[in-house]
């Protein structure tokens, strides 16, 4: 019995050793697989643009295979950070502009400058909006190229407008008009507008235009202190939260509502307006195939407070510092950013590219929705590009939720956010 055990044990050791040797000596195939990570793999209709890109690239580039790598919008950073800690991150990952500098500081991102130099340097970079490109420049290096730059606008249901006695060709142009419209549109179990209150990144795109529209801001002009204690900031903050707390023109449970909930509300006629990205008409259509978005919905610039300003959904792809195939990865990356791919993405999912040759193209100008979104680009403002931004943003979300829930008055909540911001900035 013990001799048999010894024999089995020796056999097991030999099998493990041989298997390991084979796997190390003969790696599977010569195909280079490039992991293309984004949360959009799980989101229609944007998934279709990715699927098309993957198919087209793989067919035209034998030897390199673009492989789907899923993340989720809520955990795209945590996934990439965890993978990077293990030096096993996806070759190409997708983020909004906010974490780029943090990821670069931790050494997780590849400096693209050498590749860009080979492509022509400044001439290559001239294809993109330079202010968008500035977000990718950090400490003398370039860590990304700007992908989609999607200014925010107002999407509204024209049928609801008509039912409420409002002219769909005259959307609200000022805040006063906006308030008037949403009150008229709110009746029964339908509300005038859907807004976000959930603790997620998407809240800033929808909230910031109200903060900035009165002349308020997060920081002073020199970026050294909080500006949340100004009357202008309070006015904008109050306007947003009082849509629920005072005017009741927003569905209850706002604190639980994120971007997808609000789109779903519009898709199922629970709300008449939302603060929208260019890709949202397509998403709303995908949520409710029975609604003809192109016929029923319209898009207009955000109503203007004291200044015309909007925010943007702005994302970029990065290359992992730990990619094992930098040249093949750059080839995939560069192909994603070329005009052909970016235009195809727009046609499939409505994404607006940061490429300069894109916004004036006939395809964009001829699209009912895209032309309105694209025209907002000059009014786009970004949040402060500071390392401290995540904590400042967190303090603002806390203030918004505390006001929406009635835990604090808007004045007290914003004051606490102001104090928290100054603490983060090291201001006494």
């Amino acid at each position: 019995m013990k001799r048999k055990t010894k024999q089995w044990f020796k056999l097991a050791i030999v099998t493990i050793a041989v298997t390991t040797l084979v796997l190390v000596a003969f790696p599977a195939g010569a195909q280079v697989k490039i992991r293309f990570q984004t949360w959009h793999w799980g989101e229609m209709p944007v998934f279709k643009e990715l699927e098309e890109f993957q198919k087209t690239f793989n067919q035209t580039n034998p030897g390199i295979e673009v492989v789907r790598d899923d993340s989720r919008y809520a955990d795209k950073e945590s996934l990439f950070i965890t993978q990077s800690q293990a030096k096993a991150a996806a070759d190409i990952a997708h983020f909004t502009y906010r974490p780029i500098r943090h990821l670069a500081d931790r050494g997780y991102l590849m400096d693209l400058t050498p590749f860009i130099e080979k492509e022509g340097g400044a001439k290559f970079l001239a294809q993109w909006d330079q202010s968008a490109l500035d977000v990718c420049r950090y400490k003398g290096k370039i860590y990304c190229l700007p992908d989609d730059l999607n200014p925010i606008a107002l999407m509204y249901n024209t049928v609801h407008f008509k039912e409420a006695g409002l002219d769909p060709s005259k959307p609200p142009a000022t805040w006063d008009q906006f308030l008037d419209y949403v009150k008229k549109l709110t009746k029964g179990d339908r509300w005038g507008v859907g807004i976000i209150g959930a603790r997620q990144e998407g809240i800033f795109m929808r909230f910031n235009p109200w903060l900035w529209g009165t002349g308020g801001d997060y920081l002073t002009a020199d970026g050294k202190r909080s500006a949340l204690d100004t009357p202008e900031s309070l006015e904008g903050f109050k306007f947003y939260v009082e849509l629920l707390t005072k005017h009741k023109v927003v569905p209850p449970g706002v604190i639980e509502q994120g971007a997808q909930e609000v789109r779903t509300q519009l898709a199922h006629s629970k709300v008449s307006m939302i603060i929208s990205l260019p890709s949202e008409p397509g998403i709303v259509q995908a949520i409710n195939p029975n609604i003809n978005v192109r016929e029923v919905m319209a898009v207009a610039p955000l109503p203007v407070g004291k200044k015309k300003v909007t925010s943007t959904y702005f994302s970029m792809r990065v290359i992992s510092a730990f990619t094992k195939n930098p040249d093949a990865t750059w080839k995939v990356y560069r192909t994603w950013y070329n005009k052909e791919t970016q235009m195809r993405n727009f046609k499939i999912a409505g994404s607006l590219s940061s490429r300069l040759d894109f916004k004036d193209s006939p395809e964009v100008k001829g699209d009912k929705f895209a032309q309105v979104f694209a025209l907002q680009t000059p009014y786009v403002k970004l949040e402060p590009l500071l390392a401290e931004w995540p904590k400042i943003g967190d303090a603002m979300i806390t203030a918004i939720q505390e006001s929406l829930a009635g835990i604090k008055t808007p004045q007290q909540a914003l004051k606490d956010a102001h104090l928290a911001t100054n603490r983060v900035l090291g201001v006494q």
Partner: protein
Amino acid sequence: MSASRTWHDRHLGPLFVLPATLMLVAVLIFPAAMTLKLSLTPEGGSGWSLTLIHYIRAFRDPVLAQTFRNTFEFVALSLVGHLILGLALALALKQALVGQAFFRLIVLVPWTIPDVIAGIIFRWILNPIHGSLNPLLRAIFPGFPAEFSWLSSPTLAFPSLIFANIWRGYPLVMVMLLAGLMAIPRELYEAAAVDGAGRLKSFIHVTLPGLRTIILIVLALDMIWEFRRFALVLTMTGGGPGTLTEVLSILVYKSYFEFFTFEYASAIAILMSVVLFILSLPYIILVGRER
């Protein structure tokens, strides 16, 4: 021949245990050691330059203090709920009922559902517009508001979370208490009945003393699990409204993955572990005594 048999006797056992030991080191001891090291590293630093700055900051952080309070409240109420519900069901399931096996199976279902799914289910149930709870309450109480916000309410968000956590976690407590109940000798109940003890007195003087050790073990283990509860809180409330339901696991997650302060997050995680160890001492002493 007898020498190699001796070699087998000495080395075969440890060799079979070796893969599991290596796995334990890889997934438990190594990450814990790395977390400790990270917590002592200056922000953005590397190598062996060590500092206590993150711990000093933690002790001065009012947000962390509030989060600790939230966590203790969350754990205490969950433990009480688990114990009461678990014990009640264990007592019920100990009876000879028709369909006893079926009921014993059904009551385990909440425990089989992952935290994330449970959190999403409760979000749907409690949704003010589309949830199933509000219409049900309106059917029973016609005056109940049509679109009542549970998770957005400053007074009800925390209780809603506790309720979901109690529902999710009671089965394990119930199973352990049921095993404990079955181990109490029937003769003790018979003797108590002979002495004139009713059901309540039997429960107080026979059942509870008989379950004392199991209850302590259950409380200790449950406390450790509830202290680390993350996915349920994240999916149900995200720590909101504001920071009313923010527990330590959420703060560690935010500090690490949203604020990119890896070192501070590690310090909070180490402090959590220290507190848990202290609170688990009665359990550790009890297990040590039993050996």
